[in-house]
């Protein structure tokens, strides 16, 4: 049962920050509520009250200035999935589209996805590959932190008391880039990622001049995997390269998971999702069916 003694719905960011700043951690910020409300009803978290951020205009909206994209933290997965401003970053649109179901995507937000710090957060894997930065605001001031730096364990962030994520910022990948996201779930909708993979590959004169590879649900938080980026750098797209990447991803996942029970399956499965995504990015088509 929900047992709250306070519920605030501020209309501006300074008002929200003042409420949160004066409460320590007694008040929790509420975004879309798709993670927080179930946790509250199950009694997994017991704040004194909530500060509902949904009526704060400063936290909404998606915009682009030159090559920088800004996404308000209260933007829903549905807004991200369908935003024409994000056509240049298919990996983020695909990650947003992979979340839950249409109802959850209409309600859940990208800021909430980060702050909830789930190992399987779909958009966080894409944001890691984009080297995205989160701008944090509190009554004391603002600071910017890399999204992947902000996360420090399952359900753990470096957000300070009274601090909220205002917006997410990243650069559009350079000309000649292709990107994508793939999710391994137990079914095609309403399933938590058992593993996800985001890639940004930039081609120059037929060779890969820049690569960003991020893996999610392998370890505590999604993260970039430099060892896998090196496999791609300087190479020409080919079936051999896909094989090499799949083998390297398998090794990487094996090292990341160590002796966890999921290792034997995930080490194998990552090869399949890596092939799916690279095949699409290299040749624009799915895997050949034998």
């Amino acid at each position, binding site marked *: 049962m929900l047992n709250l003694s306070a519920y605030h719905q501020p209309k501006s960011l300074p008002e929200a920050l003042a409420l949160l700043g004066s409460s320590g951690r007694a008040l929790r910020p509420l975004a879309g509520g798709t993670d927080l409300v179930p946790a509250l009803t199950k009694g997994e978290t017991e704040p004194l009250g909530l500060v509902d951020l949904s009526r704060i205009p400063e936290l909404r909206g998606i915009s682009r200035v030159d090559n920088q994209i800004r996404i308000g933290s209260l933007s829903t997965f549905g807004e991200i999935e369908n935003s024409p401003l994000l056509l240049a970053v298919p990996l983020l649109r695909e990650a947003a589209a992979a979340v839950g179901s249409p109802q959850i995507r209409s309600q859940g937000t990208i800021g909430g996805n980060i702050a909830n710090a789930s190992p399987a957060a779909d958009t966080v894997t894409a944001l890691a590959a984009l080297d995205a930065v989160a701008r944090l605001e509190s009554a004391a001031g603002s600071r910017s932190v890399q999204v992947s730096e902000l996360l420090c364990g399952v359900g753990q962030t470096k957000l300070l008391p009274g601090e909220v994520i205002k917006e997410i910022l990243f650069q559009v990948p350079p000309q000649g880039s292709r990107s994508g996201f793939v999710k391994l779930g137990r*079914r095609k*909708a309403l399933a938590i990622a058992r593993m996800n993979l985001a890639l940004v590959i930039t081609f120059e004169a037929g060779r890969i001049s820049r690569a960003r590879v991020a893996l999610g649900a392998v370890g505590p938080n999604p993260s970039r995997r430099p060892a896998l980026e090196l496999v791609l750098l300087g190479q020409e797209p080919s079936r051999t390269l896909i094989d090499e990447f799949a083998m390297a991803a398998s090794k990487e996942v094996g090292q990341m998971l160590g002796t966890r029970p999921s290792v034997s*399956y995930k080490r194998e499965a990552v090869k399949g999702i890596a092939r799916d995504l690279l095949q699409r990015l290299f040749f624009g088509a799915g895997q050949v*069916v034998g």
Partner: protein
Amino acid sequence: MKKRGYGIGSMWYGIGSTAATNPSGAFVDFLDDGTAIVMSGCADIGQGSTTVLAQIAAETLGVGLEDVVVITADTGMTPDSGPSSASRQTYISGNAVRLAAEKAREQVIAKAAEMLDLDPGEIRLRDGQVWYEEEPAGKTMIEVIAQCRGEGILTLGHGTFNPATTKLDPATGQGVPYATYAFATQIAEVEVDTETGIVEVKKIVAAHDVGAAVNPQNVEGQIEGGCSMGVGYALLEEVVVDGGEIKNPGLSSYLIPTALDMPEVFPMIVEAQEPSGPYGAKGVGEPALVPTAAAIANAVADALGIRLYDLPLTPERIVAAIKAAASSQHE
């Protein structure tokens, strides 16, 4: 690597249990405006039985479907029709409604025969008219029912259907356990990713002998719904018990297929008339689910050349089976 395979599953399934009594009752009240009220205890749980009972009554009484009101599953006013289970309602309660409607019809026909001075055995009711041989005989049903009411005759009928109880041999359990049987064959096409272990069902063709399809669209819906349960049974659904505690007690952890997990299903309705069924009908509720998992498991065996014996065919089981087969080949 992705591999494709095809598999077949076939089944037969008893309809109308005769091992114990299996009765259903119905009332039909044929009213003086030419409409009818059907009362049946049959609970429509979404499968469409109320529509089917209305169709059976309308067909028997010679009125339009829009002229039949069906009151169901109210223990305060409807007769016992037994449970909506065992794929029995079209067959059992459909027969009860048919018999009740025939009783109501008999009274109208008897009065029409008297009014027109014709042999009642040659009179039919159709499209709101009284028919003799192949032509309208010059009286409407409304006129005949009004005449009945004028004479104090209520055109009511009741019917019960209970397939002859055979009882099974208490020592051997043998006997004739069902009044009739439904038959079906389904074919599944799958694509298996040998690395992720994910089985994607690409297509299901499902041919079902339903005796007669009282409502073909309903039957197709039943077949498609059954196939979706079968996909869940084959690939997803598993109650995980640890120390006596169910670890996945909700639909967020006990997963069933979503619309996105379902392939296109091609239902094929086979109509081999069942003489004891209402207008030849049998049942399709459970049969639609029975062969699906077998067809999918056979398709996976066809794709991989490896046979798995445990359901559901989870990605972990598929990957483990592929690894085990590869290592036994090396030995």
